[in-house]
């Protein structure tokens, strides 16, 4: 058994290291940012509401943290009628 182990030489630390790196990259992106996204969402809604009437449910704000850049995706559905009012 020990000889077998010696040849296969499976060390577990690199796996631990890799799992942690993936997990923490993900967790760091989500913790704290939920606050930021909520604040951004409210403020964006307020700015839009000044000009057009939108359904709160139809506004989606998403933040995606990549390795080098973070993107903020804002998706707002503006109804036809509201658009007319703004014009």
């Amino acid at each position, binding site marked *: 058994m020990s000889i077998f182990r010696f040849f296969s030489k499976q060390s577990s*630390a690199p796996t631990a290291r890799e799992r942690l790196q993936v997990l923490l990259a993900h967790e760091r992106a989500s913790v704290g940012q939920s606050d930021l996204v909520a604040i951004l969402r409210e403020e964006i809604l307020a700015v839009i509401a000044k000009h057009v009437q939108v359904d709160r449910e139809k506004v989606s704000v998403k933040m995606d943290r990549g390795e080098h850049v973070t993107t903020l995706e804002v998706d707002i559905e503006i109804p036809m009628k509201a658009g007319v009012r703004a014009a």
Partner: protein
Amino acid sequence: MAKVVVVTSGKGGVGKTTSTAALGAALAQRNEKTVVVDFDVGLRNLDLVMGAERRVVYDIVNVIQGDAKLPQALIRDKRLETLFLLPASQTRDKDALTPEGVERVMDELKKHFDWIICDSPAGIERGATLAMRHADVAVIVTNPEVSSVRDSDRIIGLLDSKTERAERGDRVEKHLLLTRYDAARAERGDMLKVDDVLEILSIPLIGIVPESAEVLKASNLGAPVTLADSRSAPAIAYLDAARRLAGETLPITIPGEKRGLFGKIFGRRAA
């Protein structure tokens, strides 16, 4: 100027109380007036590790609620006259700690001590956030193990957002204290290496405390590791960490990996 240090980790059982006692004693051994404060209300243990469990009369909650004055609650160490303990209460729940009360106690301690070492409870609830609230410096105790590293990462996030310093746009100085390290297992690839943990958490290292029987022995006796046997490997690690905390620059050695002259002489008992 008093320095407030929080010893924290998120995860339980990694060595916060052991490290608080050892670092507190090590700083006091340098002749600097030091108080160790237990924030683990309801589950206090710093008194036991310090060997002062039978001398507790009043505690931090008594002081906060005005039932006792701070000097009445402070316990002077029998071995070092520069070392004091402010115990937590054992019977009350954590809600007895109020932010205003803790602030008052900390302000008063700052007038009398060079070092205030706060022993944080595990978790990220009230006790833990109040323990870190007034910190200038944080010692993050981490074991080379996945759950401990993950929780330390979480605590680092809290130190950067929920402390008084963070709120006024300042930073808490953060240091990693790696405990229960086994150089041989790390070398075999069965334990995260120092560099792995450092790379993942990216905060500076203040010391590496080896896995050692001396730690349990010291707690059995009710003595901080640095006082129980100041030549043991964990004691040396803590004494060096305290020197770094005090601003000295010392090279970090990985215990059990390279042995200097000192290690050769005391090698057998240090291992």
